[in-house]
């Protein structure tokens, strides 16, 4: 009979002092910085950070292995690698936010939100026409996509469970998810051309293009959420003699509503920054346009693209406006996300 050989009979093991992590982190940073200067003769921050991270990994590995043992060493190695990857992933985001904030703030002022670009060639002017355009076009796209997407999801999750039609719908929805946005724009442009005569651009055409992109997102997220509603609740309603459609309207949808709302908000956030389809379908204009169905309508992504790609005589003024437009777009998406969370919390089923 084999016996298990214990490495040591005690239950205690060596522990590194608490200060080890911060001390070795500071040490590695200083040493990495010094090495970077030594190698390149100048302060190369990227190299210094990379060297510091490698040094830190090495120091912690040796210290833990000697004092605490190999099991804790691999635990710490994994932790350090995961944290390192996380920081690396956050760097572009932080840099992006910093760039947009620092370059967007100078023109993030009252005229930017009170004037359009009508009769403006140099400095001054604003993006009010683009802000409203984005609100109109995205709002209309939401009005088109949510009923279609939600009803499709209800069919898939409640009525056509695994029948042929629902399999076909799921397949085509997946195909639609992969449609390049420029194709959606061309589709909307061609459709409006057929209906209203060639070359017609309008905010509504932009809404149609965005709906093509938005519907599959709404369908997939809503379908998943409806499937999460426990079957027991449906059975409870059926057992009370409630017809199927009332069960869906009054039990299934209210139970899933918080998730449905966040799904819709995420879908809006996904399409609000689309540039290519709006470039084709909604077109450019320098003026305010309150009519979705006639004449081109400016939107924020197109405004940013246009200001950056076609600066007039005063290049800096156009670029400043472009960054302010980008900042506005990021803020709108952020506000949408916050609103989505608040709504989700407001509607979530309470337990106490």
């Amino acid at each position, binding site marked *: 009979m084999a016996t298990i050989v214990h490495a040591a009979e005690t239950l205690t093991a060596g522990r590194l002092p608490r200060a080890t992590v911060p001390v070795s982190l500071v040490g590695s940073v200083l040493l990495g910085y010094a090495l970077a200067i030594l190698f390149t003769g100048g302060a190369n921050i990227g190299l210094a950070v990379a060297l510091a991270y490698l040094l830190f990994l090495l120091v912690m590995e040796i210290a833990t292995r000697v004092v605490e043992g190999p099991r804790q060493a691999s635990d710490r190695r994994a932790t350090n690698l995961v944290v390192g990857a996380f920081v690396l992933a956050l760097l572009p985001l932080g840099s992006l936010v910093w760039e947009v904030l620092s370059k967007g703030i100078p023109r993030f002022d009252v005229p930017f939100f009170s004037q359009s670009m009508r009769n403006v060639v140099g400095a001054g002017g604003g993006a009010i026409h683009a802000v409203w355009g984005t609100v109109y076009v995205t709002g209309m796209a939401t009005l088109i996509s949510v009923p279609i997407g939600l009803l499709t999801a209800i069919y898939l999750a409640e009525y056509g*469970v*695994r029948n042929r039609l629902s399999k076909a719908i799921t397949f085509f929805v997946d195909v639609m998810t992969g449609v390049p946005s420029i194709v959606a724009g061309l589709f909307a442009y061609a459709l409006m051309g057929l209906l209203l005569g060639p070359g017609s651009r309008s905010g509504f055409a932009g809404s149609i293009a965005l709906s093509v992109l938005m519907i599959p997102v709404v369908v997939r997220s809503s379908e998943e959420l409806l499937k999460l509603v*426990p*079957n*027991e*609740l*449906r*059975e*409870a*309603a*059926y*057992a*009370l*003699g*409630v*017809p199927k459609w*009332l*069960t869906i309207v*009054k*039990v299934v949808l*209210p*139970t899933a509503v918080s998730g449905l709302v966040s799904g819709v908000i995420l879908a809006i956030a996904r399409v609000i920054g689309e540039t290519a389809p709006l470039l084709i379908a909604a077109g450019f204009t320098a003026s305010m346009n309150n009519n979705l169905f006639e004449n081109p309508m400016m939107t924020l992504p197109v405004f940013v693209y246009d200001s950056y790609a076609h600066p007039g005589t005063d290049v800096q003024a156009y670029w400043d406006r472009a960054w302010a437009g980008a900042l506005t777009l990021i803020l709108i998406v952020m506000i949408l996300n916050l609103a989505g969370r608040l709504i989700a919390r407001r509607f979530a*089923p*309470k*337990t*106490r």
Partner: protein
Amino acid sequence: MSKRIETTDLNVYYGNFRAVEDVTITIEPRSVTAFIGPSGCGKSTFLRTLNRMHEVIPGAYVEGEVLLDGENLYGPGVDPVRVRRQVGMVFQRPNPFPTMSIKENVLAGIRLNNRRMPKADQDDLVERSLRGANLWEEVKNRLDLPGSGLSGGQQQRLCIARAIAMEPQVLLMDEPCSALDPISTLAIEDLMSELKEQYTIVIVTHNMQQAARVSDVTAFFNIAGTGSPGKLIEVGPTDKIFSAPDVQATEDYISGRFG
């Protein structure tokens, strides 16, 4: 306010698979009938055919007839929704609606069906149903709090209150106590003996002592083996089934020789 159920040669299928074979049974009004038997013997499936709840599962269908006071539940033109308004059901796991308060849960059958009712009548119905389910004293001060905040046993009694608020003719209970502790189980068993004054009660249980305690009639279901359909082996007064059953298999099951 209770009706007799009679089935003749009832077969239940899930697609090509025959789950229950040739059940002929009469369930008397104002009594508790218990279905016992090993797992997978079709007693829950059979129970669900009594209010057409098995139709929720795609591919399930029934051959034969179920008569509710002489009216065939599977006759042409019968609306399953109307059947379920007469034959209520309580499930194995308590399933109050999470988006509704205690009061709304009791009124769910009214509200979900878009029926209008004066507020005073609603309050009456809530109190009557909760008293009927022995829950009124425990929740009367928190009727507007969510039903999912109650304990498991209270939630199950809330589900019973919800079912009897519809004033059904028959109450089906699918292992109503299997997720509950002995105290809550006792509360629900007491409730069953009160409810049988008014309703026809059918209960599926794995607990033979429970069947012996609460039921007037016991029906024993069994299967020959995996893949073969469940059959009704024997039905009779509970005293007789538990003391001198006619069939050897029933005695073996009850005395714990198998299952």
